[in-house]
């Protein structure tokens, strides 16, 4: 057999040395590693081969001489060799993750063949939970877990949030931009149960940290905690659910080196279509023909056909500059952009130390078209990130482990120094095609004197407003000491953690004074206008030179965090009674910029009990405090209880062979939320001490009576926010009932959960309360709101391996979550349909359109508008008089459609593996969602017309759209632009081949995997663009239909090598 005749290695360390390459050497220089001990005494060599019973060799399994620290691991072909002492007990312990560990007596044997059996229960049987881990079968809370490998399938996506989409039931994501370095989607778990901060708590290795800067090749698992039982231990922070990210750690064995490289092509996804100059002006003529009924002078703007034609068929290049026809989408965006990512990791370990270290480099390229600005530098957008991580576990003594995690990232986001970021790409959506060319033939940038604010030369803006490099450095350090206290009480251990996180952000680059260059415009008549021509400087304007702006630390954005925690854990088994108990104390100090530090303190316990793995009970609680609240409300207790029954372990079901597992579980508990705004929100500090009324010092003192801005002797004081001493956290009462099932030896498994969250004491910001202007200030904030969320999650996985080794698998999940506002301090006299009460958070509301007015008779006979009634024309929509009071006004705004957050999400994945080949597709969709995309035509008399179907005319009364208005607009479009935001995407697809033998081994690799995958490949939707939310992460609207950096589709080619 070729495998067994392969070269044998004398020892683990030799083998190790032989394979060392320059690259490895470099990597090893920064990891701690100690070689294995080799035995000088009498030894003999035992060789062996390991397989899984299906004839597949098992690579990377650990073989240790029982009772010693000596061992080795199998190579890519399942072979191993190990020097075994000739005397004494000669038992090898053979283990591999996902397999049952086996002891083999090799006394007298030189060559052994071992088959390890798959441990069906074990594959994913350890679940990361709050402050610990638990065996999957004893979990009674609603927890979903996925692995780093699953994330890696999301073709070319570089952030975890986006890669999680579809892979966790109950997780709802909304992607709204494709800007490099800002693609973190908005995340909700099981819907939205508060109008305040509704983002789940995110912990990385147990510490609250942002997930945007983590490279996910370092991620071992992601665990998502959803119900009270799982989240109550996080007390005042767990209300929105918790996402636990666990990074990879080393395991005992030889160094496994993994190198991977990805190359991603990003292509702009769907952008609203606009007409070219000819068509836009033709529509303008149509509009004017109607509007002269209101304003005869509009005929001045009518474009004669002969002139129209010049836009499309100019007779000379010179005429083309006077009658430009510019496709701003084409000018603004490249056809594609490239991203690259490279990663190398080494993991392994000895009995003394286990290590995982990795380095990751990511470059996200940019879609924006950048032109040579003639000034000697090249600006643009882009994102580069370097990550490193070193996770070490030292076995200091037989009972003491020290773990140190050192990780960090250095990100560089390249942007421009624009005061208004959105103007950089708004042109693609809202620049008129006929206004001006990007550059005239002499190289001068174009501009439009008629409206320099709304219509900007965004290509010029991107190309000439300097380079802003925002550099973010993050260094996170944790130390954890675990002591087994078995000497005092068997099963007791103690753990102490200390963590320090620091984030630094600096800004610098090329400063070009907002790009004040000479710009010109040639009017259709041939007159030339310049922007920098004021007064005497008319013809001698000199472009100011750019300067290098050195990096300066943004002091208000630096972050510091120290965290420490002490934990006691006890586990015991008395007959069939399994008991665990955990107690924990932690303190957290966090500060940003120069603000006074934020403090938190938590006391947490968890006890679990099960009888015979059949009946489970778990009681959790957290007692914790938040400085956001006054002394009376500062601390509180958040308990939860959960029960579980593993039916399949009952004797009456145990004999049913096709039933692997059947469990019923339920939980009930309270969790809190003390976050009002996102950390980092500009107003965050304003909502920090809401229980107090304080005087404020306003740093404003310009001298009255002067124009020069001298300081006044009088510095301002003002009354701050009116405080409310009763301010407290929001509390969610969470209920969850779930069933977990597994049939037919793992062919079908999954779970069904029903949940019901009731949030009360939701803070209503003073500015959002029904408060009277004559109070003269915002009303005090108060915990008055109530919201209910109901929903369910269904997950089903299929997995079957055919006899010919073809494995087919599938995964279907669906989540439904719908919230309802129970109380929101609505003004009492508002009609019920205008109250927030009774509707979802963010329910879309508007006037509603009826049929077109087809004749003047219909116009005159229609319900009167409260204002602008004189502007109605045939071809417009008849607005519904919703409340039937005989006039159209703001009381006809009524709920219709859904919120922008989908009620339902669906995911469907299908994959197959055959030998080295694997393939999978993942579809993801949402429904019951409304998204307003206000495509405005002729906004401020710019000739932008969006494609929105056929236009109304007398002969076409069933048209898809009204004729846009050129001037006399009044925004009476009702819900015309409220699109059904449902969509279905081919979210991910991957085709891969793994080489594990043959030539790869000959060139020193264990395996080589080549894959082609893609993200967001196909989209089916009624929306005119590919964005899932108008909001950015800070809650700002990206200008409705436009103003957003386009989202992208990605095609990724990658290779991954294990050495």
């Amino acid at each position, binding site marked *: 057999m070729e495998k067994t005749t392969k070269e044998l290695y004398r020892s683990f360390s030799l083998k190790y040395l032989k394979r060392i390459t320059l690259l490895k050497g470099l990597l090893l220089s920064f990891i701690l590693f100690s070689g294995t001990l080799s035995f000088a005494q009498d030894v003999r060599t035992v060789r062996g081969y390991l397989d899984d019973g299906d004839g597949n060799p098992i690579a990377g399994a650990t073989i240790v001489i029982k009772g010693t620290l000596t061992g080795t691991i199998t190579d890519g072909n399942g072979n191993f060799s190990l020097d075994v002492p000739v005397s004494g007990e000669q038992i090898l312990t053979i283990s591999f993750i996902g397999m049952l560990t086996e002891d083999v007596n090799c006394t007298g044997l030189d060559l052994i063949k071992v088959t390890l059996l798959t441990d069906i229960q074990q594959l994913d049987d350890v679940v990361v939970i709050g402050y610990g881990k638990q065996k999957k079968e004893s979990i009674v809370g609603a927890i979903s877990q996925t692995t780093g490998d699953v994330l890696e399938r999301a073709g070319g996506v570089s952030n975890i949030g986006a890669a999680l989409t579809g892979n966790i039931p109950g997780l709802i994501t909304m992607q709204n931009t494709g800007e490099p370095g800002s693609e973190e989607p908005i995340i909700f778990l099981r819907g939205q149960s508060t109008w305040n901060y509704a983002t789940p708590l995110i912990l990385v290795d147990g510490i609250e940290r942002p997930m945007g800067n983590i490279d996910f090749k370092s991620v071992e698992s992601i665990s998502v905690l959803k119900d009270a039982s799982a989240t109550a231990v996080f007390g005042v922070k767990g209300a929105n659910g918790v996402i636990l990210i666990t990074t990879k750690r080393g395991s005992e064995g030889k160094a496994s080196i993994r190198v991977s490289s990805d190359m991603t092509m990003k292509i702009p996804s769907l952008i609203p279509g606009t007409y070219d100059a000819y068509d836009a002006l033709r529509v303008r003529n149509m509009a004017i023909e109607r509007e002269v009924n209101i*304003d*005869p*002078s509009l005929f*001045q*703007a009518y474009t004669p056909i002969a002139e129209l034609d010049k836009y499309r068929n100019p007779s000379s290049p010179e005429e083309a500059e006077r009658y430009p026809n510019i496709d701003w989408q084409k000018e603004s965006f490249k056809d594609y952009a490239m991203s690259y990512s490279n990663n190398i990791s080494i993991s392994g370990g000895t009995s003394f130390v286990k290590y995982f270290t990795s380095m990751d480099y990511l470059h996200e390229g940019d879609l924006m078209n950048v032109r040579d600005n003639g000034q000697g530098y090249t600006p643009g957008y882009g994102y580069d990130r370097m990550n490193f991580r070193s996770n070490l576990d030292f076995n200091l003594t037989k009972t003491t482990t020290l773990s140190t995690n050192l990780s960090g990232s250095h990100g560089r986001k390249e942007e421009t120094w624009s005061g208004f970021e959105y103007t950089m790409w708004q042109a693609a959506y809202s620049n008129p095609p006929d206004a001006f060319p990007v550059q005239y033939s002499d190289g001068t940038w174009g501009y439009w*004197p*008629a*409206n320099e604010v709304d219509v900007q030369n965004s290509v010029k803006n991107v190309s000439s407003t300097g380079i802003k490099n925002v550099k973010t450095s993050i260094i996170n350090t944790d130390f954890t000491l675990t002591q087994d206290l078995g000497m005092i009480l068997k099963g007791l251990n103690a753990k102490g953690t200390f963590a320090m996180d620091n984030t630094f952000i600096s800004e610098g680059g090329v400063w070009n004074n907002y790009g004040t260059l000479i710009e010109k415009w040639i009017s259709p008549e041939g007159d030339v206008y310049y922007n920098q*021509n*004021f*007064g005497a400087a*008319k013809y001698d304007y000199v472009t100011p030179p750019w300067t290098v702006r050195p990096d300066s630390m943004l002091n208000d954005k630096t972050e510091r965090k120290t965290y420490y925690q002490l934990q006691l854990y006890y586990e015991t088994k008395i007959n069939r009674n399994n008991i665990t108990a955990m107690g924990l104390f932690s303190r957290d100090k966090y500060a940003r910029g120069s603000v*006074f530090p934020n*403090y938190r303190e938590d006391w947490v316990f968890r006890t679990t009990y099960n009888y015979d793995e059949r009946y489970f009970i778990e009681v959790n609680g957290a007692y914790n*405090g938040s*400085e956001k609240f006054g002394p009376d409300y500062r601390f509180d207790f958040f308990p939860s209880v959960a029960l579980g029954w593993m039916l399949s372990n009952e004797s009456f079901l145990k004999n049913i062979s096709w039933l692997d597992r059947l469990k019923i579980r339920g939980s009930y508990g309270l969790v809190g939320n003390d976050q009002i705004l996102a950390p980092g929100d500009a107003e965050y500090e304003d909502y920090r001490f809401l229980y107090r009324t*304080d*005087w*404020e*010092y*306003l740093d*404003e*003192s310009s*001298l*009255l*009576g*002067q*124009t*020069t*801005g001298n300081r006044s*002797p*009088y510095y*301002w*004081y*003002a*009354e701050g926010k009116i405080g409310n001493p009763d301010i407290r956290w929001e509390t969610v009462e969470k209920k969850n009932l779930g069933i977990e099932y597994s049939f037919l030896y793992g062919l079908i498994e999954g779970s069904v959960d029903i949940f019901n969250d009731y949030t009360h004491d939701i803070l209503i910001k003073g*500015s959002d309360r*029904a408060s*009277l*202007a*004559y*109070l*003269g*200030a*915002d009303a005090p904030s108060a915990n008055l709101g109530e919201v209910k969320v109901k929903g369910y999650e269904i997950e089903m996985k299929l997995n079957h391996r055919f006899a010919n080794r073809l494995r087919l698998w599938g995964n279907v999940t669906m989540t439904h979550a719908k919230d309802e506002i129970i109380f929101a301090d609505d*003004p*009492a*006299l*508002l009609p019920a349909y205008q109250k927030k009460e009774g509707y979802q958070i963010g329910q879309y509301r508007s006037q509603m359109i009826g049929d077109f007015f087809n004749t003047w008779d219909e116009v005159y006979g229609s319900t009167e508008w409260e*204002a*602008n*009634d*004189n*502007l109605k024309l045939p071809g417009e929509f008849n607005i519904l008089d919703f409340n039937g009071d005989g006039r159209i006004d*703001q009381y006809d705004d009524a709920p219709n459609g859904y919120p922008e957050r989908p009620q339902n999400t669906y995911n469907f994945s299908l994959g197959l593996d055959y030998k080295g080949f694997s393939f999978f597709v993942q579809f993801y969709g949402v429904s019951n969602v409304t998204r307003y995309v206000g495509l405005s035509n002729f906004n*401020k*008399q710019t000739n932008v017309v969006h494609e929105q179907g056929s236009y109304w005319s007398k002969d076409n009364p069933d048209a898809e759209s009204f004729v846009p208005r050129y*001037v006399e*607009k*009044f925004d009476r479009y009702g819900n015309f632009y409220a699109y059904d935001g449902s969509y279905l995407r081919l979210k991910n697809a991957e085709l891969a081949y793994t080489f594990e033998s043959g030539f790869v081994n000959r060139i020193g690799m264990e395996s080589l995997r080549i894959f082609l995958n893609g993200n967001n490949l196909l989209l089916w939707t009624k929306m005119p663009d590919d964005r899932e939310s108008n909001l950015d992460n800070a809650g700002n609207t990206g200008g409705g239909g436009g103003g957003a950096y386009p989202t992208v589709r990605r095609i990724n080619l990658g290779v991954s090598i294990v050495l």
Partner: protein
Amino acid sequence: MDKAPEAIISDQEVFGTFKSFQGFVEEMYHCIPDYTRSIWVADWNIGDEILATTVDWRLNVHFDNGDYWYWYTSGGQGWDQSYFGEDEGAVTGTGADGWQKKGLWPLSWYGIRKANVGLANLDKLVEATQEEKDIIKGQLLFFRGFFHFQLMSFWGGLPYISEVLGTDKLDLPRLTYRETALLAAHDLDSAAQYLPANWDNTVAGRVTLGNNSQRVTKSTAYAYMGKDLLYAASPLMNKVSTGNASYDEELCKRAAEAFYNCLYLSQTGQAFYQLTEWSRYRENFYTLNGDIPGYPESLMTPRFYWNNTGYDATMSLDQPQVLGFDGNMVSPTHSYVKNFGMANGLPIDAEGSGYDPADPWTGRDPRFYEFIVYDGVQVIQGGTSGDDYRRYANLYGGLGKTNGNYRDDLSGSRTGYMSRKFFPLEGNEVDAVPNRLKLPGYMRLADVYYMYAEAVLYGYGTPQSSYAGNSGFVLTAEDAVNIVRARANVPGVDARYLVSKEAFMSEIIKERAVELMSEANIRFCDLRRWMIHGEMKYREKTALDFDRGPDGKPINMEERIVVTRVVEDKHYWFPLPQDQVTIYPEFGQNPGW
């Protein structure tokens, strides 16, 4: 976990000394919006003065269509065209960085609360002289009355807030206009007792010697007291309060007294306010020397924030694209320009006025030439021959005619006129006069003279009546109007307009239109309070279409109605925001909205 003690400011720190307390008061001066700077291209005229280019986003375009909601919904266009509201009530922008964010509605309420907080903490002011204590108290009372008056004049009767409102349920009813006005008058009257006549002559004012012009004084308090009472006495306000649509004589008399007190302080030199002499007349609106415009005539101006020379909102507002601006222009309507009389003091339609319809721009009131650019005026003074195409105001044209290059419905004058009230003609891109500081105020002495005349006329019955004040200073209604006319070298009101209240009033109406054109929405408030804004001559905004004849004079003239303003009964008042009127029934919406 308590708030760090270093982060807490004590009552004593805020109110303990004159200096700190005045720092508390100081912010109230910044609660007054500069109505010309709500956005980059300013927008505030909502009466019959101007016509904008054909756009849909102008405040005055929406008001012409009767859409008064636009006072607070205009922010929906991406920025706020209206200086009345901002962010639906959020109090923002008292500071220099918020000069564009000031909203009259939210900041007036904010200022009222601030005044009440100050008054409630007056006892904590210990380290101060009596004079200093008075100055603080006078300012607090003044601003409480002033802000209420500002609100009333657009929204009608409101609750009068005279204490720091707590956080309990609020259910104050709206008072009638008269009740609200009387409470404001009381505060303004008290303020006048405490405020100094001239800050420069006080110990406290010496700290800011030479920079006290914008601070409120006795005169300001009297002037606003008079204005408040005159408004309350006016037909509209009297009608909504008492059902009687004529002037309230009693309130007119009280108003006349307050105006008299204001004018008397100037007459005797105790206050520095004087009519600016004719040669410096334009300094009421803009200056070229870096001084704050308006003084010594202005009684109330907003804080000036910005002297950026690169871009001037008003210049851009009033000039056509051909002069180097963005063309979002407003132009005075021909119907409004007709208010300008003749140099001989007669209205153009009066017999013997000498007005020649074929030569309409000759021999007019001198203020016509100060404020209005008409066809043929030389605009560009310097430049090269390359600028000849735009050197003279080519304002001829109109519907069906060939437009001069200053005239265009989309990027130039729409009416055949151009306003030059707020900038020098040389403020075009060729002459480029730098350092233009423009700041039309809220009230100047000329306005006080007119209002005095109106109050005396309806309080005491004839143009020849006067308020019986100090024997050394007697001022009849007729004199009051003529003093302002005389400054502009316009002869006094002709005898035929002195025969009746109505005749004299017709001259006051024209006179105010001319002198106070485009200032602080005085016109908008006047038309409403006189209950005449529904008359067709004030509803129809017209343009003058004409060709330029061979001798440079206009020919083929035709007055064309461009817009007929929508005016119904509900348009007497602004609507209140919906979220304000749905909380409890006693705080109800204005009628018709």
